């Protein structure tokens, strides 16, 4: 699949804890097309988050090939992987993971510290990202002064600000009420449809999964559907 943004071939992931070895992913093959919005579903322990970590370059596979945004991640060392993440991936977490001592704007600016942008440019870009997610009026507020939905929007702005190729979202609505969750999901859908962002989202929530263009189900470390989405 030539326009795949994510491509996994025979990927295994095994964790070793003391003398115990746990096989989390087995011979996994998957292609996700550029511009797709994929919801990854499955019971706890099925390997969703591990797969997401591999796609986002947070973890390395035990075996197999992982290619994301044209880069073989399994061939990158730690430092190169960190630089790759900074350029190509935006992360959204269930509990937002914002820096509590920084304002919303400063939180959004964090990924831009790794670029050569000036302070003024970083500020402009951060405000643009906050405007895009509809929360520019809360730019000076700290995370403790924001609601869950607002905090998650700030987290999405932080994920977007460096214009990544891929958004990786781990249960982005898991800590939100229905209304806020729907707002966040609409936002992700808008980013996918209008801005062409490729999104891989792990969720337990079937309603959340409906916002995605494709759904993948996992169980016991394997995909239940065929691994090519287009």
């Amino acid at each position, binding site marked *: 699949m030539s326009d795949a943004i994510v491509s996994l071939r025979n990927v295994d992931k095994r964790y070793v804890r003391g003398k115990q070895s746990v096989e989390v992913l087995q011979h996994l093959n998957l292609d996700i097309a550029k511009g797709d919005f994929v919801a990854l579903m499955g019971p706890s322990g099925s390997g969703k*988050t591990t797969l997401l*970590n591999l796609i*986002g370059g*947070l*973890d390395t596979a035990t075996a197999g090939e992982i290619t994301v945004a044209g880069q073989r991640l399994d061939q990158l060392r*730690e*430092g190169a992987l*960190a*630089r790759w*993440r*900074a*350029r190509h991936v935006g*992360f959204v*977490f*269930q*509990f937002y*993971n914002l*820096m*509590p*001592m*920084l304002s919303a704007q*400063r939180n959004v600016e*964090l*990924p831009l*510290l*790794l670029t050569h942008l000036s*302070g003024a440019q*970083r500020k402009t870009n951060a405000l643009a990202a906050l405007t895009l997610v509809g929360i520019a009026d809360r730019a000076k507020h700290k995370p403790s002064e924001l609601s869950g939905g607002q905090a998650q929007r700030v987290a999405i702005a*932080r994920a977007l600000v460096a214009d990544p190729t891929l958004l990786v979202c*781990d*249960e982005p609505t898991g800590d939100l009420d229905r209304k806020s969750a729907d707002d966040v999901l609409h936002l992700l859908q808008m980013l996918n449809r209008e801005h062409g962002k490729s999104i891989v989202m792990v969720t337990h929530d079937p309603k959340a999964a409906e916002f995605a263009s494709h759904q993948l189900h996992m169980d016991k470390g394997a995909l239940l559907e065929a691994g090519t989405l287009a």
Partner: protein
Amino acid sequence: MKYFPLVWATLWRKKTRTIFTLLSMVVAFLLFGMLETIDYAFAHPSGGATGADKLITINKYSITLLLPFSDAQAIRAVPGVAEVTWLTWLGAYYQESKNFVFALPVDTDSYFNLHKDEFIVSGEQMQAYRNTRTGALVNSALMKKFGWKVGDKVPLHSTIWTQKKDASLDWTFDIVGSFDARDPTQAGQQASTLLFHYELFDEGRSFGKGNVGWFEERVGDPSQSAAIAGRIDALFANSPNETKTQPAKDFALAFMKQLGDIGFVLRAILGAVFFTLLFLTGNTMMQSVRERTPELAVLKTIGFGDAKVLGLVIGESLLLCVIAAVIGLGLSYAALPIIKLGLQGVEVSPRALLPGIGAAVLLALAVGTPPALRAMRLNIVDALADKR
């Protein structure tokens, strides 16, 4: 610099803890600054512009051992010696032991000849001094300190010398004049000085008559000082009273070192302070990093490499220590005039504070490196698993 706001915000994440840590460090650096200043001062006695041609001869074995007055004649005969005088330490205070007075019995002619043009004293008062057996010339700073004026009769209590007439330790003088040092660098050294007649002292004391505390020599050619000192000491080699002759500024240092190895004592105190500080600050930094594990994991997630995370934590430690050092050493600098009052005859210099900045950097590295390494080695997946 672009990381500064992040480091600064992180430092103040727990304001109360940071303030208390900072305060304890400020106190430590204040102590450091003051003790270093004192240590520096003892290592750099103030010779002044007029000290280069002066030698001091003391008993080879201890300054507390006296020398025979008769040695003065032999020293005067040494080639290169232009003048010699003799003095003895009265060990005096006024009313209370904290009111130290550097009271010196001096031989008027030889002393003022040796220190020609070094004192500002009116001719009239000098004459009055010569004419008054119990007269004393007092430094104007000392006059001001105790509110003395010319004509006052002041009793000084000696901690050493009893009087022959009544075994009393109290010596009474008539203030007939005041003096100032012509060389401003000597002003501090002379600020507690009271000069009185050697004859009064020698005849009045109950023991030690005919002996002196030390000799002071002026040499014609300062470049020959070392050779002349050698000649003086050679005169008394193998005698019951062997001598040690040295430049005046070395004597001042040796005199102060009678108190003990000041540098060692000061360094021991500082060592204890910084050892405690190391654990206190190290523990605070470690705790701070432990609490921020998920935040550090997020930074790594969004692309901060190991080296950057290491740098951020060390930067935080550095910032904390340097702020504390700047405040603490700044307060020490402000206290220099007070230290100066207590340390006369030595050079009190802000240069002594410079090692404080070096100490701050070393401390920052010592306390910042372990948590920084921990942060650097953080496994993103494990750290995020705690709070995703």
